[in-house]
């Protein structure tokens, strides 16, 4: 099974407020009237609501491609959130951490991949445990 490694946020995260542009960016021609600055955005604040409960996980493998999570993506996990049906979660399965969607199907909980090549994993007894809920995924789109 593909598994994930957990990273911890830096010890001294610095606040860095950068301008946030107000316009919704569309995949077309922007209106010249839209390019005003709406405020400042600090990525730590945007991504980390509860620092004491937040961990980062590096995703591995192709099983969650359908949910837009690809190999090497960085996931933000908030353990303070209790997992619900439909959440994307980090789960401990047979001692390894893996990212899957938590679903209740016909009254039974299961962990499902978002890739037809991967069968769902039924949650039986204590072979599986939800480790934390994935709140964001971060992907690099430019390698240089």
């Amino acid at each position, binding site marked *: 099974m593909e598994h994930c*490694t*957990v990273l*911890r946020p830096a*010890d001294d995260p610095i606040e860095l407020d950068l301008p946030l542009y107000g316009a919704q960016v569309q995949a077309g021609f922007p209106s010249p009237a839209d390019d005003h600055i709406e405020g400042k955005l600090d990525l730590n604040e945007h991504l980390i609501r*509860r*620092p*004491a*409960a937040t961990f980062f996980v590096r995703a591995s493998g192709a099983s969650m491609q359908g949910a837009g999570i690809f190999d090497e993506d960085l996931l933000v996990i908030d*353990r*303070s959130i*209790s997992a619900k049906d439909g959440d994307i979660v980090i789960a*401990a399965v*047979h*001692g*390894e*951490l893996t990212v899957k969607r938590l679903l209740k199907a016909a009254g039974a909980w299961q962990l499902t991949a978002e890739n037809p090549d991967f069968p769902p994993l039924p949650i039986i007894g204590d072979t599986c*445990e939800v*480790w934390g809920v994935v709140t964001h995924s971060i992907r690099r789109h430019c390698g240089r």
Partner: protein
Amino acid sequence: MATFGLVDCNNFYASCERLFQPGLRERPVVVLSNNDGCVIARSNEAKALGIAMGAPFFKVRQIAMEHGVVVRSSNYALYGDMSERVMSVLASQAPAHEVYSIDESFLDLDRLAVPDLTVWCQDLRRRTQQWTGIPVSIGVGPTKTLAKLANRLGRPALPQGEGGR
């Protein structure tokens, strides 16, 4: 009368190691001091094997190998980070707290107006475990000494009746 709580992380260093490697959960785990000299943390399974707190590792190497004990060098950056997380959860819930060591904190529960202190402590344990992944025990008493004693009495009995990280 004053009311103190003592929150103590269970087998703290071993619990930190287990959080990031759930495969270690059912196995005996020990953590060694700097340069891997002595045993400074033991999971309950390792305590049950009779591995003593502070034992020089060479003295327990044989029993560790025979029982498949997972042996870890200490990782203080990790333990420091996890400690901060636990302490920040406690600070957010208790009216006042005093960090006593890397894995213990006294809570001043005097001004805490809750109908049932036991239920409040159980909620705090659950919240700390969920947010940080670290299991804790809480003892409550009219003095810090008695809170610490209550904490020890609230734990499962172990051979040699000892605790520690």
